[in-house]
């Protein structure tokens, strides 16, 4: 795992997708690339939430939060078996 990075869950407002994108996954990727040259999407979600997960620095996450169409950027949580 890269030092200084952590996984975030990014919730997107799909209805605010710019018309230039034909597919929401391209928009998500573009949004991520706009704040990080190295971060890659782990998962793209469409049923459970609208958004994606990716690993990035706190600074990149903060920058992403202010991008168009981003609803929230939340650090990943760890769950445990009961």
């Amino acid at each position, binding site marked *: 795992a890269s030092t200084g990075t952590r996984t975030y869950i990014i919730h997107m407002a799909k*209805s605010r997708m710019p018309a230039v994108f034909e597919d929401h996954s391209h928009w998500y990727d573009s949004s991520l690339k706009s704040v990080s040259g190295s971060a890659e999407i*782990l998962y793209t979600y469409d049923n459970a939430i609208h958004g994606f997960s990716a690993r990035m620095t706190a600074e990149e996450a903060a920058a992403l939060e202010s991008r168009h169409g981003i609803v929230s950027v939340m650090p990943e949580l760890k769950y445990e078996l009961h």
Partner: protein
Amino acid sequence: TTRTPSFLGLDQNSAMFPESESTSDVIVGVLDTGVWPESPSYDDTGLGPVPSFWKGECEVGTNFTKSNCNRKLVGARFFSKGYEATLGPIDQSKESKSPRDDDGHGTHTSSTAAGSVVSGASLFGYAAGTARGMAPHARVAVYKVCWIGGCFSSDILAAIEKAIDDNVNVLSMSLGGGVSDYFRDSVASGAFAAMEKGILISCSAGNAGPSSYSLSNVAPWITTVGAGTLDRDFPAYVSLGNGKNYSGVSLYKGDPLPGQMIPLIYAGNATNATNGNLCMTGTLIPEKVAGKIVLCDRGVNPRVQKGSVVKTAGGIGMVLTNTVANGEELVADAHLLPATGVGETTGEAIKSYLFSDTNPTATIFFEGTKVGIQPSPVVAAFSSRGPNPITARILKPDMIAPGVNILAGWSRAVGPTGLSEDARRVEFNIISGTSMSCPHVSGLAALLKGAHPDWSPAAIRSALMTTAKVVDKNGKLIEDVSTGKPSTPFDHGAGHVDPVSALNPGLIYDLGVDDYLYFLCALNYTADEISVLAKNNFTCDSGKSYSINDFNYPSFAVSLPATTDSTLGSGDGTSSDTVKHTRTVTNVGSPGTYKVSISTSDAFKVSVNPQELTFSQTNEKKTYTATFTAISSEPTDANAFGRIEWTDGKHVVGSPIAVSWT
């Protein structure tokens, strides 16, 4: 599981339940540690073709191929990108990068929910009988999201994403995290999406009891399940050199102790470590424990590991005593050496003898399996408790179900203790937790879904809640083992699940997607916070009044202001010590008239209007208002409890009341 089908009345009333044709069209998705597909619990004999709506797959990976799935185990996927991104590549010498279960927990939960019928099941002869899931004809789809290092929310969300896409009908999640608002909680946000698609989501309440506010998975679109005991026990008695005998529990099977009294030593006196009393790894002095029975205190490290530590140090037996944190609750374990677990009181008595006698001795007798234990059920001490830490005005847990000493399928990759040094391999294991109670409810929900395919997830939950029992097999209020006193709705929710009654509940409290959105509005969620859950542009109507008090939940969590004598009220519904809740019930039975009955404490009163509801047809809806009024002056954080029941003479539709003064 063995015993629980009988304990829940399923065996005795099998004719009432839908046969394979309807329940085999129900698919239970389980997010957990994967599956051991060779377990007989996934035998597909007698099952017809997989339902045509099913889109799931059997994913290939380490020691797992497509042929591991069948008409019972219809789907198996794994999700590890989030886990590997955080902790690095999976070490495939330690865990399978596939749906295969190297832990046992996932095989246990999924077989509890919907395992096939297996005769001759037992763990070393303990809990012997015919094992089966709660919905033995339902199909199973497993989604492996938990690994040695934990379960990561990016993987959980990916699994829910796929489960929705695959078309599961019920989703069972025996996992949880810390307390966080619904829109920050991946399980809650994923569950909201599943609920929108008509999927019932059943989650474990957590094992952080008996502390208050210890619940997890409390979103109102999730069915939250606490744990109770069965009427079964595994006694193992400690006999002391002073002639006294004390009862404990154990699942030990192996060479017995020598047939004479054996020297007994307290771990705290056989160590140089400050925490040596806990029998932590490497803390016992072999010269002091060799050939002796060692008394260890419970806590910090796993119970079975303490036995292993004693054995490694040369001890030949162990008495594991609860501390004040666990009280008298006894959880049986398949220890690696002759060992028994005893309650705190017994532990103190043994310590008193041990510290006062110059040559203390003991032995342990293992008595096997006993059934018919009363009282039962009782609320497990570990079962997490209310009030709801996120939304106090939604009563949680929703119900309790069997979760103590449950036998179900296990992985052959690991022994029954889960310890690396445990070389034993078993087809079934006996373990405890709300992880075990959750899939009981998931399977029962699958049964109800098979019987009533048109019922919403909220309707199914309502049926399970309003028919749940608040009395034990002897007709006494269900006890809380942590106090020895009657449990409250903060402990047992609506009560202990009663699936036979749930099949025909009479009335249901239904909820749709809009109701949940209005609930979020009542919480004053922002548009963005709502969109995290609802994935759309829903905005609350600023001109509309949203109230949690009118949220059509099958239970009542009432908030009253902490009062003084001068504010004690008129009871006219206008003063601050009076709160109104509105509910709408739907008739799912035959036409009839229901009359209300109310039980309360001395601290508050309830009036219901109207007091009779007459239904002339099925699916007819009627609304009533319950007005709660404080009678006595109560300080902040005081609680009182009651119950509203509607009955037509054939059905009893019960709702618990929890009043909190804030």
